[in-house]
């Protein structure tokens, strides 16, 4: 049947050959790039969550200076395009790090592409995560936290046993949105030259001149990642909302 399809539409066979997993097909390269994208997205998302947790707690419980600094951080990151933030952090980040290390007497480090990508995107994600987590923590009924305090639970224990589990289902829609943003923002790293899916696609397209084929294939891969993520987050949300009234 495949042969019949190829005879009717010859260009299809060329496209399928371009995408095959073994060289000279570029499919393997694309999948490698997709794996790198996924790693960067996961790392950036987790880093963003960590920064976001500290940011949200700082905004809610911190002193006035901390709150203002965090407000500047979130406003700047949410107003400046990610591309420019990525460029500034990419150059300034490695520059400052190496200068600091040199000042301390150590040899400059080489930061691998994946780590730099995670750091840069993580800082961007952190600002959005701060807002999402702050909104979620504020929505936790104050009575529960007051009751925990009445029981003598310390701040960390209260957060761990009461606030965090209660805010998680409230934060999940925002967090799943953030995860999608993380996966799509990895494409911007192609402009800085990180070897992830979009860059591999552009290299493959440039080498074979089959732009349409490769960009469609990359789009399909991203869509696959998005749809699978959507299912996973839906399952997590259902599990955490067990026993709660449906929204």
């Amino acid at each position, binding site marked *: 049947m495949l042969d019949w399809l190829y005879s009717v539409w010859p260009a299809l066979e060329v496209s399928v050959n371009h995408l095959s997993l073994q060289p000279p097909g570029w499919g393997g390269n694309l999948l490698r790039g997709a794996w790198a994208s996924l790693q960067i997205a996961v790392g950036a998302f987790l880093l963003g969550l960590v920064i976001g947790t500290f940011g949200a707690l700082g905004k809610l419980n911190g002193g006035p200076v901390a709150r203002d600094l965090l407000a500047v951080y979130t406003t700047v990151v949410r*107003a400046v*395009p990610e*591309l*420019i933030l990525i460029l500034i952090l990419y150059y300034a980040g490695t520059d400052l790090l190496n200068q600091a290390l040199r000042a301390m007497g150590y040899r400059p480090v080489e930061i691998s592409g994946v780590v730099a990508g995670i750091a840069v995107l993580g800082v961007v994600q952190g600002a959005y995560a701060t807002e999402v987590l702050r909104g979620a923590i504020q929505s936790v009924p104050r009575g529960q936290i007051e009751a925990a305090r009445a029981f003598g639970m310390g701040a960390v224990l209260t957060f761990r046993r009461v606030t965090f589990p209660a805010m998680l289902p409230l934060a999940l829609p925002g967090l799943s949105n953030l995860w999608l943003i993380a996966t799509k923002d*990895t494409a911007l790293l192609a402009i800085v030259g990180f070897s992830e899916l979009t860059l591999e696609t552009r290299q493959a397209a440039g080498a074979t001149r089959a*732009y349409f084929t490769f*960009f469609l294939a990359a789009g399909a891969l991203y*869509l696959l990642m998005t749809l699978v993520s959507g299912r996973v987050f839906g399952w997590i949300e259902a599990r955490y909302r067990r026993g709660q009234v449906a929204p």
Partner: protein
Amino acid sequence: MSSTMNPALRRIADEVLVPHRLVMVAVAIGVVIWAAMSMRWHWIPRYSDLAIQGIWRTLWLLGLSVLIGFTLAVPLGLAQAAGPRFLAAPARAFCTVIRGTPLLLQLWLIYFGLGSLFPQFPWIRESELWPYLRQAWPYALLALSLSFAGYEGEVMRGAFKSVPHGQLEAARSMGMSRFAILRRIWLPQALQRALPTLGGETVLQMKATPLVATITVIDIYAVASRVRQDTFIIYEPLLLLALIYMVIAGMIALAFKLLERHFNRGIVV
């Protein structure tokens, strides 16, 4: 004395004239003055013309793509909220695909993907559209508009669904035609509910505009890139660029605040 002060001035006095804020404002002014004096800004006069053109291009691409995208988003949202299966399913598929793939990829697919098909159809070069198909901005406008439509289609779907159904039923029972209901009750209320989200999404659209520089549209980001390449200065153009975008974002936020005030007239929140 404070009780006779203008409330706006009072708020400013309360928020700014506090010790820690004064210190921070002073530090910020200090940083700005240090930056203005110690960093290299000699390139600004030479590129100011190009920069103004770039800012204009960014602004009209943003404005036009938001308008066109929103015009497409209303039917997309309506189809998903109230339409029959054969309309709702394609609308949902469109929104899912747009929201599931990066804008950069969509942009390159539209520009380079379509471009790679041109050599196979030589008659395109003779057609009326050729002067537009040659340039880059139509593709940028198309990609940005479709992207905005995809995201706002989803927002409008939620907005249409959130209008209390009782109002629509009451209007129907009074004999209003479907179109009249849409025009006078459903759409205005959905718009009013969606407005805050739309403001945020417009800022996100502004943050997406630098990507058009990769398909040779000279927006303000492309001008900053050119400055960096001509002069080899790394940070200063990027910092000024970030400032310009923050100003534009502030203007968008202000515009939407005014819009919200207009739409919320008479509504008890």
